[in-house]
């Protein structure tokens, strides 16, 4: 790429151009004026000579007359001076015989003046010799010569003037046009020089203004605007380039700082999360210790109650305590374990037995499971919370006729069949918004289908340390999703007043301990 010229050379070039334009116009008009002056001088050259001759004749004649009448040396000196001047003027007159009327007139005039000077000189000499008759005659002769010469001077002046006027008449009409054109030339030169100056100043100040704008932008913190390459001059291009480099460097530095700040922020957040996790872990540990203490106490108490009821022959109470103890034992095991559908069904049946004891004929419970599904794996405590929800929420306001149905079956072709667990009730049901909220709380779309990464990436993960009795629907949804790596799903089919069906679909081989 061609490197732009330096600012100095640009200034020199622009100034030179301006001077060239104005100088050309000035020189041109100067030459034109000089030519015009020369022409005018030539026009009046002849008349100027005639004026010299006329003046010389008059001065010489006056001096001669003065000398002859007074014999004053002053007059004589003047006469000598004037006659010399007259002779000099006469010497410039034509003396050759040429076929030109004006030249022949000049010749006649020149010879007349010669004769005048001769007669005048004779008169002076005669006066010095005191020869009155001779100087009188010579003086008269000189007077006649002077008189005739003056006539010729007038004639020549007239001829010269006519010739000059004739020559000038041809020029006059053109002179006006030339003066106008020369004036236009000067105006055009000034305008052109002005435009060169303006153009040059724009070319210099334009990039500087762009630089100033860019600097202002940077001062305001806008580092995104790139400074264009300047072709104005070497200095400005260099400055712009340096400025652009500086802008880019500052921008890079800022980006690095911003990036570092982001990393630091993330680190702090991670640290805070770790602190929170740590706190939660401690809470969980405490809770676990507490859980380990309470079940022992509870089992010992229940065992004592069972022994007591057996010793007292209260079989029904003994059954109650046995089933309650079995249910609690199942519930207190870690919820993250995988169990068989048969275990889960057995747990539900114990829970239902307790509920029947509690609600009597008010609610009817029905638990059905296909034989084939009992060996399939499932996360623990899936069905019990759903039954608890159906009773606590679905049938809450129902005084009688409440029904809860639990079923387990396989669906799909053999080898790829999924385990389907269902809990349905004929309670008050759920609205679509309510269902969507349930899924939203689990970080799932309204249809409950999780993405490949599972719901752990969205929403706040529910606590896994909730007590067994408090495991809610969203806890079930969450655990199904975690246990099946997002491949299992929970479906809720319900409408207000139309009961609720919660279906848990577990893909074949889809649960993990």
């Amino acid at each position, binding site marked *: 790429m061609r490197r732009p010229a330096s600012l100095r050379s640009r200034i020199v070039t622009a100034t030179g151009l301006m001077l060239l334009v104005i100088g050309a116009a000035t020189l041109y008009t100067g030459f034109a004026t000089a030519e015009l002056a020369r022409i005018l001088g030539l026009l009046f050259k002849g008349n100027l000579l005639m004026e010299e001759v006329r003046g010389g004749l008059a001065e010489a004649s006056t001096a001669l007359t003065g000398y002859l009448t007074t014999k004053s040396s002053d007059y004589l000196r003047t006469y000598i001076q004037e006659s010399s001047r007259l002779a000099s003027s006469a010497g410039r007159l034509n003396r050759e*015989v040429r076929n030109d009327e004006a030249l022949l007139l000049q010749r006649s005039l020149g010879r007349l003046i010669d004769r005048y000077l001769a007669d005048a000189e004779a008169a002076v000499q005669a006066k010095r010799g005191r020869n009155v008759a001779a100087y009188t005659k010579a003086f008269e002769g000189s007077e006649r010569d002077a008189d005739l010469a003056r006539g010729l001077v007038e004639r020549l002046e007239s001829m010269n003037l006519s010739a000059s006027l004739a020559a000038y008449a041809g020029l006059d009409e053109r002179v006006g046009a030339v003066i106008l054109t020369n004036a236009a030339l000067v105006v055009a030169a000034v305008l*052109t020089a002005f435009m060169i100056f303006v153009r040059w100043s724009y070319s210099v100040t334009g990039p500087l203004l762009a630089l100033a704008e860019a600097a202002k932008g940077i001062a305001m913190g806008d580092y995104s605007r790139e400074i264009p390459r300047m072709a104005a001059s070497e200095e400005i291009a260099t400055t712009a380039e340096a400025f652009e480099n500086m802008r880019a460097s500052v921008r890079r530095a800022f980006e690095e700082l911003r990036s570092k700040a982001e990393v630091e922020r993330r680190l702090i957040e991670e640290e805070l999360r770790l602190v929170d996790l740590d706190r939660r872990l401690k809470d969980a540990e405490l809770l676990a210790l507490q859980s380990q203490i309470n079940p022992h106490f509870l089992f010992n108490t229940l065992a004592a109650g069972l022994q007591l009821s057996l010793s007292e022959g209260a079989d029904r109470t003994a059954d109650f305590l046995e089933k309650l103890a079995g249910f609690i034992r199942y519930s207190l095991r870690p919820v993250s374990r995988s169990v068989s559908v048969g275990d889960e069904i057995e747990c539900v049946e114990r829970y239902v037995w307790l509920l029947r004891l509690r609600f009597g004929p008010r609610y009817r419970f029905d638990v059905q499971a296909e034989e084939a599904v009992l060996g399939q794996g499932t996360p623990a405590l899936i069905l019990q919370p759903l039954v608890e929800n159906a009773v606590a929420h679905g049938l809450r306001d129902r005084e009688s006729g409440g029904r809860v149905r639990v079923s387990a079956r396989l669906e799909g072709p053999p080898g790829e069949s999924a385990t389907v667990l269902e809990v349905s009730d004929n309670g008050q049901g759920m609205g679509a918004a309510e269902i969507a909220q349930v899924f939203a709380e689990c970080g799932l779309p309204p249809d409950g289908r999780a993405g490949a990464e599972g719901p752990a990436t969205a929403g706040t993960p529910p606590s896994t340390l909730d007590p067994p009795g408090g495991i809610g629907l969203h806890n079930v949804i969450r655990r199904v999703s975690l246990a099946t790596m997002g491949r299992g799903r929970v479906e809720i089919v319900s409408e207000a007043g139309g009961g609720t069906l919660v279906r848990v679909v577990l893909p074949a081989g889809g649960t993990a301990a």
Partner: protein
Amino acid sequence: MRKAAWILATLFGLVFVGATLLNAELVARSRSALAAAGLMGAPPAPEARFHLLVILPDSDDAFFTHLLEGLEAGAPAAGAALQVERYAASSSTEADRWFDIGLRAGVDGLVMYAARGDDVAGRAALAQAAGVAFVAVGKDAPSGSLPCFIGSASLIQGSQGGALIAGRLKGGARVGLILPSDRFEGPGENILYRGVAASMAIYSGARIVATAWSQPGILSGEEAAASLLRGHPDINAIFCANSRDTLGAAQVLVDQNLVGRILLVGADETPELLRYLEKGVIAASVVRDSRRIGEEALRAFAAMKAGRKAPGIVEVDSVVRLPGAKE
């Protein structure tokens, strides 16, 4: 901005070129005009051996026009450069002044018109004393001894005109004469008058009824002709002594519808006069050969400068120009 700069630069260039061309044209024109006026650059006028001063009356008479043409035609052969000076025809002082200038300036020769009454012999003597070749030219030879006079003879011009009129009108010719006003003479003293009268004398009854004198000026001939016709209605022929008066009289005949009724015989020839001649307004013109007078004058001057004897008095013949006749 760049575009405007280019437009202005182009404009400046155009104006610059235009101004240059205009100035160049002005300079060329001025040089041409100055050269034409002899103020610069003109090739020097051709050199000649002799400075010849020609002194003629300032008259619009074709006689002098042709005389000058003859002088200019003869000048190269004589090796003379002509300085022609005109003086008012009514002022002999001015003629004398030029004569004096010629002598005092020491010109090589003088050709001077000799009007009636001029002291031509005295001038010739003064010129001879000053060593200046002197040639007098004119219409009629002046009295006195002259070394050189070249002219036409008014007597012959008059007699040729008179004979022409009398030949046409016979004894019934009643002629009106228009003569240029001359100094010191009445009709009887006028040589041309005498020539006309003499030629008509052979026809009994033919006579000159009246003479009118024309003054210098282009309308003078017209005035004189009108005056003649007004004062003498019986005039049936007019004879004029010069071309100017002839044209004036022809104008009067046309204006008064007298063409064909009055026979007009004129003098000399000009393009306009020849046109009237061809139209029949003018019957004939007695042409004095003043061009030849000029040529003869230069020939005489050359002879004198060559040291040969001056030719003395030379009278050049007149010719009668008739309609349809080629020169």
